[in-house]
């Protein structure tokens, strides 16, 4: 296997790009882009876009341990090509609606790191983010000067973009098809939880003003970091849209709001929502992501100005019909829906969710994905 011989990461990147370049069908990529965009606009499409999260099953190349990829742009690019949200290595042959997305995969602590949170690499995990300290520490640091938007892991993210662009410069198909997307910037409250740790929850009772104060700082910082990074991205969906999680998003940014599902609707509305609204007001269309069951917060989320889409980390835990009814009334798109395998047919999806959705499916294998895609397209 040539990789075993030429195992310098830059060489591996080139070998993978050599493999991908002739396989990329730019006409297909453009059709998928148009379908993704139209679906999010509640326009009519031939079918709802579908993305399969493909596992990497190749043997010619091997992904690197995460800690190595974290430290090395070439190794990170290898991993993004092989084991990103979907394996681009296989996706070029499947030809589902997956965009070929690469991102600086630096974990969830990019903005937290700028506020001083320690980032620690433990075993082969994504980075762990350690809270700043006890509540007294959070109080003491509440009025510290705002971090430089380019500090912390943002520097590393910018370096990664430079590497991506340089790597594909001699590969016109890759250069045209690849999307260099934003990293995971989290959302105001999720970042606050990273900084406070789980001790943040009693603070909602003891001192909600402290949380508001930090949320205000975090939101300002998040906007600054977004602006610092977005100019380096390559995202062909156009203004008001972006790719994240290897699907199309209606929103210039996907706000990760996982922690809000731990709150009561009242608590979220009174303390956190104003800052999510601020993002919507200042950044134009936003998408909001949450894992778990978020039905209790959807009414609140729909109050975010310019809300374009809701991204579900766990669609199986939500009442999709009820959620769709709520979202559809405001033409908010629902992202990454999933249905039972036997229901996975485009006509079924069109009846149940006529417009404004995309699907993300986790097959057991690449072959399984091919089978399901045929079934979905009624071939």
């Amino acid at each position: 296997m040539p990789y075993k011989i030429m195992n310098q990461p830059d060489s591996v990147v080139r070998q993978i790009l050599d493999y991908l370049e002739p396989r990329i069908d730019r006409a297909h990529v453009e059709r998928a882009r148009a379908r993704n965009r139209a679906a999010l606009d509640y326009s009519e499409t031939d079918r709802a876009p579908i993305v399969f999260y493909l596992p990497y099953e190749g043997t010619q190349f091997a992904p690197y341990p995460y800690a190595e990829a974290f430290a090395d742009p070439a190794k990170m690019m290898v991993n993004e090509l092989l084991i990103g949200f979907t394996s681009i290595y296989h996706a070029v042959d499947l030809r589902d609606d997956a965009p070929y997305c690469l991102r600086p995969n630096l974990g969830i602590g990019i903005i937290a790191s700028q506020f001083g949170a320690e980032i620690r690499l433990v075993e082969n995990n994504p980075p762990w983010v350690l809270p700043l300290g006890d509540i007294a520490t959070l109080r003491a640091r509440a009025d510290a000067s705002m971090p430089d938007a380019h500090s912390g892991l943002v520097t590393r993210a910018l370096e990664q973009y430079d590497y991506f662009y340089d790597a594909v410069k001699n590969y016109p198909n890759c250069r045209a098809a690849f999307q260099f997307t934003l990293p995971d910037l989290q959302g105001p409250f999720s970042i606050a939880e990273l900084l406070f740790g789980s001790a943040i929850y009693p603070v909602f009772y003891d001192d909600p003003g402290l949380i508001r104060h930090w949320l205000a700082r975090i939101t300002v910082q998040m906007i600054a970091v977004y602006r610092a990074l977005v100019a380096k991205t390559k995202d062909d969906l156009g203004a008001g849209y972006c790719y994240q999680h290897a699907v199309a998003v209606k929103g210039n940014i996907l706000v990760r709001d996982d922690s809000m599902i731990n709150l009561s609707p009242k608590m979220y509305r009174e303390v956190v929502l104003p800052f999510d609204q601020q993002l919507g007001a200042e950044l134009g269309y936003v998408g909001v992501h949450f894992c778990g069951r978020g039905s209790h917060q959807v009414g609140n989320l729909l109050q975010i100005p310019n809300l374009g889409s809701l991204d579900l980390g766990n669609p199986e835990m939500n009442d999709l019909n009820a959620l769709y009814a709520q979202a559809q009334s405001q033409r908010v798109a629902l992202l990454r829906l999933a249905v039972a395998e036997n229901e996975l047919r485009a006509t079924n999806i069109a009846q149940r969710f006529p417009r404004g959705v995309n699907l993300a499916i986790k097959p057991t294998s690449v072959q399984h994905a091919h089978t399901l895609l045929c079934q979905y397209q009624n071939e």
Partner: protein
Amino acid sequence: MNLRERILTALDHREPDRVPIDIGSCGPTAIHVNAYTSLLAHLGIEEEIKLWDVVGQLAQPSERVLELLGADVRGIRVGGPKNGTKIISDDTLIDPWGITWFRTEGATCYNIRNYPLRHATQQDLATYPFPDGRDPHRVLGLAERAKQLREQTDYAILGEISGHILERAQMVRGFDTFLEDLVMRPAFADELMDRILAIECDIAATFLDAVGAYLDVFAFKDDIAMQSGPLISPKMFRARIKPRLQKLIQVIKSKTRAKIWFHSCGSVYYAVRDLIEIGVDILNPVQVAAKDMDTARLKREFGNNISFWGAIDTQNVLPFGSTQDVETEVKTRLRDLAPGGGYVLASVHNIEADVSGANVWAMAQAAKKYGAYPICV
């Protein structure tokens, strides 16, 4: 066949006259005071409700109600040390471990407000005022109660301690912090768990010295799973938690012949074989809504070696279903778990505040109606 024989026969993996029922013998099968109030209203009974557990707001069902429900088990729970719980205010208390619990307005139970060892170092563990597991105050009056149950009733008797090791470490340290400890500060984590284990062994020994001879079932708990899977990796569970659970079980078995009843919420499928290996006889609560907790498969794969106690869904069916749904749920679990014995019917964990009395009653009635052997559902 009396009630105790019914239980013991079932736990011996043989079919008694009907599937035994447990409501309220211990923490994980107890009933919230709101649900109990609703049950009393449904039954048209007026009585003073006694609170059995403040933190969980669990009611002590009266004998009259337990008999109406057909409950076959009575429980004895180890007490706390003298002056162990400090009441700070109407909504705040500090338990013997130093954990601050509080109840927010409108909440149906207490939650942890302060983890006393959140910022502790390993040196701090040596000086921290851990509770005394040997405090005789823990068992005041329990031997008499157990003897009375044994000699004057034919109920099966379940004795209960907390037993938490992993879960207690999370309670004193913080859920997330202790998960970090296990990986980043393993010496700290192990010392903390060893200190907790030593206390739980002392509690078990003290309790069993008082009541061990009277017990049919000995219950302890430690949550090792969550809804979607293991709480920690199976490898870590086997290396760090399982040996400590095994040591506790060895202490218990040295002092009683009672069956060993272990409670863990969540998706514990991954650990059932391990639990059997270290001497667990009964698995509770069989959280059927969690991943991989298909009752037919559990019975098929493990039913010859472990009994199941629980399995009536409290996440969906009991709170949100109709009485017909409850009956269907009972029939499903009877069909899956009861054949050949090895099943005690109970709710999955507490019957929570939002469960109607009608549904509690429906569960008990369906258990009696369809639980007669041979099972025909």
